[in-house]
């Protein structure tokens, strides 16, 4: 009964429900399959359930109904620690450890995995270079000595440190100013192509969703309204998707000055 590794979804949601202990339902009958190497964007407004869905993947939350599968196995059957080390995780607030240097932050997971110091060091330097930070300059700095954009890059480097095949990103560019945001996003796109990881990104920004996603899952009030390719999304007649597309067109018209 082993799923075929080539065709099977890396991440699968099967009839997933999630309700708070108080009974409030945050996710209702979510079905979703994320293929190897694709970038799936979870798009929706605040409170639509995107972040909840993301946290179900690395078992920071557990479904109250249905199941979430990673590599064909329900997350509840995984050892949560092993599952999370298998999945990189980047959040909007970054959450760098303030008492660790940049180098120590990035090195944390490989160290926990018991990798040798010299190999970890080489890996950290490689990763910092990959996210566009000069290792010689940034390795020994503390998070409070960095700008928001630099911190976000360190967060990405840290998530990639153990070379996880899956990357989860929750509003990774949300806290950055628009210019830095565009810059970091472009670098991320280049990185995405080079690494070929399976990525799930949460955002409420339609432009970002179209730019980064190979597919877009539209969340509204705890349900998925549809899953689209960027092209399909722009031409969809599903009312919520159409509203997003319309809002984007108006923004573009404004930018063109028409």
């Amino acid at each position, binding site marked *: 009964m082993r799923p075929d590794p080539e065709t099977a979804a890396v991440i699968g949601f099967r009839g997933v429900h999630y309700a708070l202990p108080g009974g409030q339902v945050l996710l209702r009958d979510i079905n979703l399959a994320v293929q190897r190497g694709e970038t799936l964007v979870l798009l929706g407004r605040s409170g639509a359930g995107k972040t909840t869905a993301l946290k179900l993947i690395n078992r*920071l939350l557990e479904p109250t109904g249905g199941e979430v599968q990673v590599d064909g196995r329900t997350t509840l059957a995984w050892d949560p620690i*092993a599952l*999370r080390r298998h999945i990189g995780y980047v959040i909007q607030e970054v*959450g760098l*450890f*303030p008492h660790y240097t940049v180098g120590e932050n990035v090195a*944390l*997971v490989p160290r926990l995995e018991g990798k040798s110091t010299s190999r970890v060091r080489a890996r950290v330097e490689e990763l910092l270079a990959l996210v566009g930070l000069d290792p010689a300059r940034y390795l020994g700095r503390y998070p409070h000595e960095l700008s928001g954009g630099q911190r976000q890059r360190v967060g990405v480097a840290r998530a990639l440190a153990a070379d996880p095949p899956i990357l989860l990103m929750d509003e990774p560019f949300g806290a950055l100013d628009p210019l830095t945001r565009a810059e970091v996003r472009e670098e991320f796109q280049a990185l995405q192509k080079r690494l070929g990881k399976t990525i799930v990104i949460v955002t409420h920004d339609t432009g970002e969703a179209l730019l980064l996603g190979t597919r877009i899952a539209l969340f509204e009030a705890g349900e998925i309204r549809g899953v689209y390719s960027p092209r399909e999304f722009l031409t969809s007649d599903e009312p919520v998707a159409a509203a997003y597309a319309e809002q984007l067109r108006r923004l573009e018209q404004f930018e063109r000055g028409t």
Partner: protein
Amino acid sequence: MNAIQYFERHPDEILQATFEHIWLVGIAMLIAAAVGVPLGILVARRPWLSKPILGTANVAETIPSLALFGFLLPVPWLGDRAARLAIAALALYALLPIIRNTAAGIASIDPAVREAARGMGMTPRQILFKVELPLSLSTVLAGVRVATVLTIGIATIAAAIGAGGLGEYIFRGLAMVNNSLILAGAIPAALLALAADFLLSVLERSLRPGR
């Protein structure tokens, strides 16, 4: 004879009392930290335990020190030796600030840091020892500092039950209506409290994590 002359005449005796005092407070603080820090972690983890634990520590804090020494007297083993009893009472007083500060230090950690730690696959033990405790160390130490200063003062009363320390001079001075004797105990005790406050605040500042 004034206090200065008394110091000049009995330096060894006063020094010995000072060491006794430091020993009483030092052991009491070690015990209080060994008990208080884990309790503080427990309070931070299980907020419903906060009321019973902090409440109990609070009650211990409100018992007048002389009465507390008296209450502990009939307790087996503890009551056998005056110093043992004094240390137990002092540790009890030191507990509240240590528990409270440990819990507050852990609670004040940026939730994003904890979420990142969990999301990266750190075990609860690794999160505690590599993230939460190092980040709250300076707050914990602030609690230890408050408790130490408090305890140095209260330890003078331990002389009433024969536990020794600088309180000996104060009680003897009171009995003999001799201010010089009172000062011979009070001045070193005050200096001790100031020195402990200074040293621990330096340590506290050096451990404050960069933010």
